[in-house]
């Protein structure tokens, strides 16, 4: 090894001496070896200059530097974000209120924006109870409708989807009315929404229930006069392990590819099986970076959820316990 190293060094030196007479062009890293000006547009440019010109330019400030400037002692006039230290949220609180979690892309995130958005969300929550719910819960939403007799439009349905971050948080309710399946999307922080109640709090086996569109209508039918089902306080959220039977194909989406747990086993045709195989991504299980980038770091999550939990405790203590609360006291 030592011998080859010395040989390599000798060769390197030889090249340097040979090119040294040409001067600065010895550092050029062009495939086309000609040093004649007409053929070489990067004549007389060092490789350092070339890399400098070709480096990806950023016309925005790096996110770490932004926070550094905000915290800097040289800065005056703008307040620094306070970290939450008093209260600690229960574990996995992010599943109770997922719209408070920021988007996982750390480069585009801004702490001040998230804080201000959360402030707005807390304020809205003082005026309206936004209960804890999951996909599969049966809910009733009442919005302001100028043309309805009592100025309210009430809709009851099963929550088939939930998403959105911050003030854009939404959920979709599905029900069957007069034999026609109806779905409505509601924004949780929309000021025209007057009340959101959970009539039956439960979870399902899947995170989205769009397959109910291809099921017999009984699975999506819920009475508008349904009475709220109360759960004992501090009970675990019940999981409804119902396996739904799908209508015969054709379906709206290729449910056989989505690895759904809440449907009965499907009869797969050879074509379906081929399709599943084609779209299989078994390597995703091993892709650590994918999983890491799809989540917010734990320390940040704890920080944010602690703030949310503190605010919730404050609001709960202020709010009176009414008949409509879902979890009764023991």
């Amino acid at each position: 090894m030592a011998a080859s190293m010395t040989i390599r060094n000798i060769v390197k030196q030889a090249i340097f001496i040979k090119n040294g007479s040409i001067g600065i062009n010895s550092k050029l890293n062009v495939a086309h070896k000609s040093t004649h000006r007409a053929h070489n547009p990067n004549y007389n440019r060092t490789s350092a200059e070339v890399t400098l010109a070709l480096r990806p330019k950023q016309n925005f400030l790096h996110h770490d530097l932004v926070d550094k400037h905000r915290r800097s002692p040289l800065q005056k006039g703008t307040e620094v974000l306070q970290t939450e230290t008093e209260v600690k949220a229960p574990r996995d609180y992010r599943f109770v209120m997922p719209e408070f979690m920021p988007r996982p892309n750390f480069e585009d995130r801004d702490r001040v924006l998230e804080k201000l958005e959360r402030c707005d969300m807390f304020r809205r929550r003082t005026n309206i109870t936004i209960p804890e719910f999951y996909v599969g819960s049966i809910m009733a939403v009442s919005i302001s409708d100028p043309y309805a007799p009592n100025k309210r439009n009430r809709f009851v349905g099963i929550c088939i989807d939930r998403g959105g971050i911050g003030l854009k948080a939404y959920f979709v309710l599905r029900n069957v009315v007069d034999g026609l399946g109806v779905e409505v999307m509601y924004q949780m922080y929309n000021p025209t929404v007057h009340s959101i109640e959970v009539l039956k709090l439960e979870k399902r086996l899947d995170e989205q229930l769009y397959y109910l569109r291809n099921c017999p209508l009984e699975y999506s039918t819920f009475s508008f006069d349904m009475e709220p089902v109360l759960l004992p306080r501090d009970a675990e959220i019940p999981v409804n392990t119902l396996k739904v039977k799908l209508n015969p194909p054709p379906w709206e989406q290729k449910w056989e590819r989505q690895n759904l747990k809440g449907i009965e086993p499907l009869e797969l045709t050879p074509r379906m099986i081929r399709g599943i195989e084609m779209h299989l991504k078994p390597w995703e299980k091993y892709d650590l970076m994918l999983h890491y980038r799809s989540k917010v770091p734990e320390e940040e999550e704890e920080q944010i959820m602690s703030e949310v939990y503190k605010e919730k405790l404050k609001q709960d203590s202020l709010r009176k316990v009414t008949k409509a609360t879902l979890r009764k006291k023991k």
Partner: protein
Amino acid sequence: MASKSILTCFLRPSCTTLLGSNGTVASLLPTSYVSVQQVRHRRYPKFVVRQNKRKTWHVRKWTQKYDDNLLTSNEQFIKDVIVENYAKNSDSPLKDAPWDRNPYVYGTRRTGVLALKLGTMLQWTTEGKPFMVTLLQVLDNHVINYVPPEVYATYPSHLPHHRQKFGLQIVGALSSDPRMFSKPYNNLFIKAGVPPKRWLTRFLITPNAACQPGTPLSVNHFKVGEYVDIQGRTRDWGFQGVCKRWGMKGMPASHGVTKSHRKMGSTGGGGDKDGIWKGKHMPGIMGDILRTQYGLKIWRINTKYNVLYVTGAAVCGRPHTFVRVYDTVLPRKKRPESSYESVPMPTWFEEDATEPLPEEYFDSKLFQFTSPSLEIEEEKK
């Protein structure tokens, strides 16, 4: 536009456009040491690196990275000295008397402000309609210098049609460690008595709105309900093809099309010119150019974090780009005469506040989340 794509690669300082990429440009400074020009019909190398001729008046901003081999205790001592020098000297008596504060009259142009784009958020009007707002944070702004119109008229960047109407206000943002910059650059800030800033820009102002160097600028320079123009650098898309850059339709994916799905196709017709007309839409470097949004309304101001909420999601650039914000030039959106007396001239000072400032100001048509849920009214015809 093809020729312009080359020009945008290196900035020339002009009266209103002194932005540059984050790491390199300030108002009086060159861009990168070298610039890049697209070369067509050559497969290798893809870029030609051209040397930018440095102007004599340019001030070099960056030094080589200092390598003092300091002990950690000495490092801390230097940081304390920096903080003491700049942050704690603000209460000392002024060297010069404070400048006159003139009233706002028709035709006045005030300074603008350098803001950091934070991102977008959803808000609702009092009628229940949702709309997007962009948040801009005015972080650590100070006035660095004022150049009177007579002196500005001698500058090479002075445009003849401005004559001697406008002076220059140089504003800087984001105080930084002086060791990052060169001595000539740090000397720019001596007059203002502020720490050297990461960003600098110029605003054209009328002399009656001149600010004394060293004045801090905050969000209270603006008022809710006013309209502003926002200048920023757009997102850098790099070298892009013709479909993305110019919205050309390309060709079908199948039906016999050979190897030409996203190409330009024909280069033009004929007629007066043999060949291609100048400015033909072609692939090239897209983005990273200065663009202005005119007449954006300020819906909300947060004085605690110095944040402006401005209509729309169209403010240029990614989050954490810096933008220039100033009173709008659109004649129909300028402030009415009745509000001239309440305009903070030349900017808002802390002494102006008779009571402690409210944390937030809202526009009358903006739904405040502290108010109860809205009732939609019937549409009147």
